[in-house]
C-alpha cells in the first residue's frame, strides 16, 4: 500500500477538503492517485539488450457536471499543485448546480494478491531464464535465426478519494513473459510469437520449466508459417480455434457495446438493445472477476467493484459496459468497467475479460461442415470502426480447409467482417471454451489497458479473407 501523502507538504485532510470543496456542486468526480513501478528486461540477438525500471507517481483530478468532464493531472503531489488543478477544474465548470452522487457499491472480494512481482524474482534469475530461452531455441536447429524474449512486470497502487473523504484503494500486480522467434529456410523468413501472463508472480507462469512450452509454441507457429502458401481472397467459411481468436469477439462486438459509443449513438449497436444480434446459442459476457486474469480488477478506476456483465444472452443484446458517467447519463448503473491507462488519462468504459461461452458442437464437426474455407488458430492484432461496424484481425497461423479436411498452412491474412451481423453468421459453437494465455492489450482513444478474451471453437458461415490468391 502506498502512502501518497508521506513525503508531501499536503496532508490527507487538506486533500480531502480541497476535493470536497471543488466537487460540491458537481455530479461526480474524484481524486485518483497512482504509484506504479515497472520493469522490462529484454534479450535479443543473443544478448541482454535492455534492462530498465520505471517509477511513476501522480494524480488525476476529475470534476463532472452533467455531460462535461474537467480533468487535470500532474506528477507532483503537493498542496500547490492540487490547488492549481482545483482552479483549473473550477474555471472549466463555471456555474455548476448538480448534486454529488455519493453512492458507490462495496465488496470485500479480491481477485489477486497484494504482491510486487518485480521484487519476487531477482534480476540474475530473470537474466538466467532469458539466456536459457535463447540457448534452448537456438539448440533446435540452424533454421532458428533470431530469438527475442522479455519480462515485463508491474505493480500499480491506486487510491480514489471521493467528495466527503470516502477512499477506495487497490494494489494490482501484472506480469508478462514473451518469446518471439524468427526462422529461415531456403531464403524464406517467418516469425512466431507466444507469451503468458496475468496478475500473479512470474513464478506462477514459469515454474517447472514452463518457459520451454512458451518457446515450443512460438517455434511451432514460425515453423508452420515456413510451409505456408498464399492465402485465398474472397468470402468463405471460417472456423476459429478456441482461446485467443476471441479477439474477434473483442473487436466485432466488444467495442460496439461500450457505454460511451452508445450514449453518443455512434455505435452500430446503439439502437439494438433487447434485439437479436447473434445466432441462438451465442452468449457473451465481460467478466472482471476471474482470479489472477490479465483483464481482472478488484475495483475499476472509479472505485466500483467489477462484476460479470452479460452482454449477449442466447443471441439477444442484454447490456452495455458502463462507467459512472455514461451509466448516469443513460439512467443505468456502472458495471465496474471504468478504466484508464494511468493518472494522465480520463476514465472510459472498457472491456475486462470478454468471453463467448461454450456450446455443444466439436471442432471436428465444424471442419467437416466446410467444403471451402479457412481454419484460423492464432492471431496478431485487430481493429474496429465502431460506427460502420467493420472490423479486422490478422491471422498469424491459419490453414485452408478443403472438403471437410484441414489442408496446407496459409500466409498471414487479414480477415474483415461486419460487427452487428457477424454473430448471426455463427452456425456452430464449440464445447471447448478456452481463456487466452494472458497477453492482450486493448487500445482506445490513445489509452492501452490489459484485457483478456476467451471463446470456444466457432464456425462462421461467411467472412471475407484478405489473401492474394484469387
Amino acid at each position, binding site marked *: 500500500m502506498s502512502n501518497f501523502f508521506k513525503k508531501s507538504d499536503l496532508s490527507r485532510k487538506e486533500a480531502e477538503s480541497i476535493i470536497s470543496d471543488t466537487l460540491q456542486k458537481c455530479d461526480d468526480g474524484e481524486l485518483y492517485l497512482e504509484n506504479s513501478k515497472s520493469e522490462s528486461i529484454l534479450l535479443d540477438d543473443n544478448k541482454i539488450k535492455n534492462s530498465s525500471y520505471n517509477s511513476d507517481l501522480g494524480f488525476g483530478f476529475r470534476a463532472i457536471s452533467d455531460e462535461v468532464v474537467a*480533468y487535470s493531472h500532474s506528477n507532483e503531489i503537493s498542496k500547490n499543485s492540487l490547488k492549481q488543478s482545483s482552479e483549473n477544474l473550477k474555471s472549466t465548470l463555471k456555474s455548476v448546480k448538480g448534486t454529488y452522487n455519493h453512492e458507490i457499491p462495496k465488496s470485500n472480494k479480491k481477485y489477486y494478491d497484494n504482491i510486487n512481482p518485480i521484487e519476487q524474482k531477482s534480476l540474475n534469475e530473470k537474466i538466467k531464464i532469458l539466456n536459457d530461452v535463447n540457448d534452448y531455441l537456438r539448440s533446435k536447429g540452424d533454421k532458428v535465426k533470431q530469438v527475442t524474449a522479455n519480462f515485463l512486470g508491474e505493480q500499480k497502487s491506486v487510491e480514489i478519494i471521493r467528495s466527503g473523504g470516502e477512499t477506495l484503494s487497490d494494489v494490482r500486480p501484472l506480469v508478462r513473459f514473451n518469446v518471439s522467434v524468427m526462422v529461415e529456410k531456403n531464403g524464406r523468413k517467418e516469425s512466431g510469437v507466444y507469451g503468458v501472463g496475468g496478475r500473479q508472480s512470474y513464478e506462477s507462469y514459469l515454474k517447472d520449466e514452463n518457459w520451454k512450452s512458451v518457446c515450443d509454441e512460438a517455434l511451432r507457429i514460425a515453423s508452420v508459417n515456413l510451409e505456408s502458401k498464399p492465402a485465398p481472397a474472397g*468470402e468463405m467459411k471460417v472456423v476459429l480455434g478456441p482461446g485467443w481468436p476471441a479477439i474477434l469477439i473483442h473487436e466485432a462486438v466488444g467495442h460496439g457495446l461500450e457505454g460511451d459509443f452508445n450514449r453518443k449513438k455512434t455505435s452500430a449497436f446503439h439502437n439494438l438493445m433487447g434485439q437479436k444480434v447473434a445466432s441462438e446459442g451465442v452468449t457473451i459476457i465481460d467478466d472482471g472477476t476471474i482470479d489472477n486474469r490479465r483483464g481482472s480488477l478488484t475495483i475499476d478506476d472509479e472505485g466500483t467493484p467489477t462484476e460479470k456483465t452479460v452482454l449477449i444472452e442466447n443471441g439477444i443484446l442484454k447490456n452495455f459496459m458502463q462507467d459512472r458517467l455514461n451509466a448516469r447519463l443513460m439512467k443505468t448503473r456502472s458495471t465496474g468497467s471504468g478504466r484508464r491507462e494511468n493518472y*494522465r488519462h480520463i476514465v472510459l468504459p472498457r472491456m475486462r475479460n470478454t468471453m463467448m461461452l461454450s456450446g455443444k458442437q466439436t471442432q471436428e464437426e465444424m471442419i467437416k461442415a466446410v467444403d471451402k474455407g479457412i481454419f484460423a488458430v492464432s492471431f496478431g492484432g485487430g481493429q474496429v470502426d465502431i460506427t460502420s461496424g467493420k472490423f479486422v484481425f490478422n491471422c498469424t497461423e491459419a490453414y485452408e480447409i478443403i472438403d471437410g479436411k484441414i489442408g496446407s498452412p496459409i500466409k498471414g491474412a487479414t480477415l474483415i467482417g461486419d460487427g452487428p451481423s457477424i454473430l448471426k453468421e455463427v452456425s456452430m459453437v464449440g464445447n471447448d471454451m478456452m481463456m487466452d494465455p494472458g497477453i492482450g492489450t486493448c487500445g482506445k482513444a490513445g489509452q492501452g489497458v490489459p484485457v483478456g478474451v476467451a471463446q470456444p471453437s466457432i464456425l462462421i458461415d461467411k467472412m471475407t479473407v484478405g489473401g492474394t490468391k484469387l
Partner: protein
Amino acid sequence: MVKDQEFLKKKASYCLDLAKKLGATDSSVVVKNSVSETVNFRNKKLDEANRSDDLGISITTYVGKKKSSISSSNLLSDNLNILIEKCLETTKNTPEDEFNSLPDKDLLAREVKDLDLYDDSHIANNQKIDYLKKLEAAASNDKKIVNTESSFTQNKSNFVLANSEGFCDGYKTSSFTASSVTVAKDEKSMERDYEYSSKCFLKDLDDADELGNLAANQTIRKLSPKKIGSEKIAIIFDKRIAKGILSTFASAISSSAISRGTSFLKDKVNQKIFSDKINVFDKPDMLKGLGSRNFDSEGVKTDTLKLVDHGILKHYLIDTYNGKKLNLKSNGRCGGTSNLYFENGNISFKDLLNSNSKSLYITETIGHGSNIVTGDYSVGATGFLVENGEFKYPINEITIAGNFKDIFQNITLANDLEFKYATNSPTMLIEGMVVAGK
C-alpha cells in the same frame, strides 16, 4: 508554464554527477517537461477540458560495456538518489555487450540552429472554445451529420539531453492541433470520418470553417457503401494512407531490424527497391517542420539524407548501437526519421485518377497488416470506386493485399505533396494489388 532550460539542465547535471560518483563510467540523461491543454466539443457543446503537466526523466548508466536505464516522473532529489543507485546496481548485474557505448564524440551535434519550432503565443481555453464553435457549426451544417466531436490542443514542451561526454543541449517546441470527427447517417448506413490540422505555430493552423467542412464532406460521401467482388485492380492511396507506406519502409530500413536480420530490406543498400522515378528524403532542418530536429535522441547531428535515389536504396537509418554492430557510423537516426517524404512525381492528381479505366481510391485502412520480416501486407480498407477518372460510389468491407517488394516497384506518384504530417507522400498509385471482397 513549461520549465526553462536552466531548470532542466540543473536536474540533468545533478544526475550525471551522481551517476559518476556512484561508479558509472558513462551516463546519459534526458529531462523533459510537457504542458498541454485540450478542449473537446461534442455536438456543439463543451464536453471535456483537460490540462496536463508532465515532467519526466530517463537515465542510462554504463559500467564499462554494461548498461541499464531507469525513468521516473518523480524528480525530487531523494527519489532520484534511490533510482540512480538502483540503476547502477542493475547495470553492474547486467551482462556486458561489446556494442554498448555513448555516441562517438566527433559525431555529436555542435551547433543548435533555430528551426522555428517554438511559438510563444498562448491560446486560452475560451479562445479554443470560439474556434471549436466555428468548426462544429461548419461540421454539422448538413442534416446527415448526426454527431460531431472536435478537439483543440495546445502543447508546449522543453527538454534537455546531456551525457558524460560533455554534450548538454535542448530546446523548446510547440504544437497546436485541431481535429474534428464526424458521424453521418442515412437509411442504410452510418459512417465516420475526420479532418485534422497540426502546426508548430498557431497562426498557421487551418481555418476552423474549412476544417469542419472537410470533415463533414469526407464523411457524407462515404454513406451507403457497397461491397465489391474480389479482383486484381489498381489502387490509389489518398495522401493520409500513402504516408503509411513510407512509415513501413522506414521501419524496414532501421538499423535494428537490419542488424537483427528481421527485415525484408536487409542487404539491399545500392539495390533498386523502388521504381526508377522514386526519390525519398529525410530532411531534419525544415523550418517549422513537424519532424524537425537539431540532433537525434543520442545527441548525434542529423543531416539530410536522400534515402532512395531513383529507386535505389542509399542508406539505412543508423543509431550508435546498431551502427557499431553493422560496422557503420551513426547517421543521427536514433529514434527514427525526421521529416520523411517522397519527392513529387510528375503527373497531376487528375491524371493519376485517369491512368486506369477502373481503380479503387482508398481513404482509410484498418488493422496491423504490415509484416516487415516477409514484406507481406494485408489490411482492411474503405474508399471509392473510380471509373474513367470519376468517383462512382463508396466501398467498404474489403481487404487489399500484396507484398512490399512488389508494391514498391509498382508505385507512381502524383505531384501534390504537402507537409501536413512529419511523414508525407503525394497521392500514390499502385498496380497489381489484390482486393478481396464478395
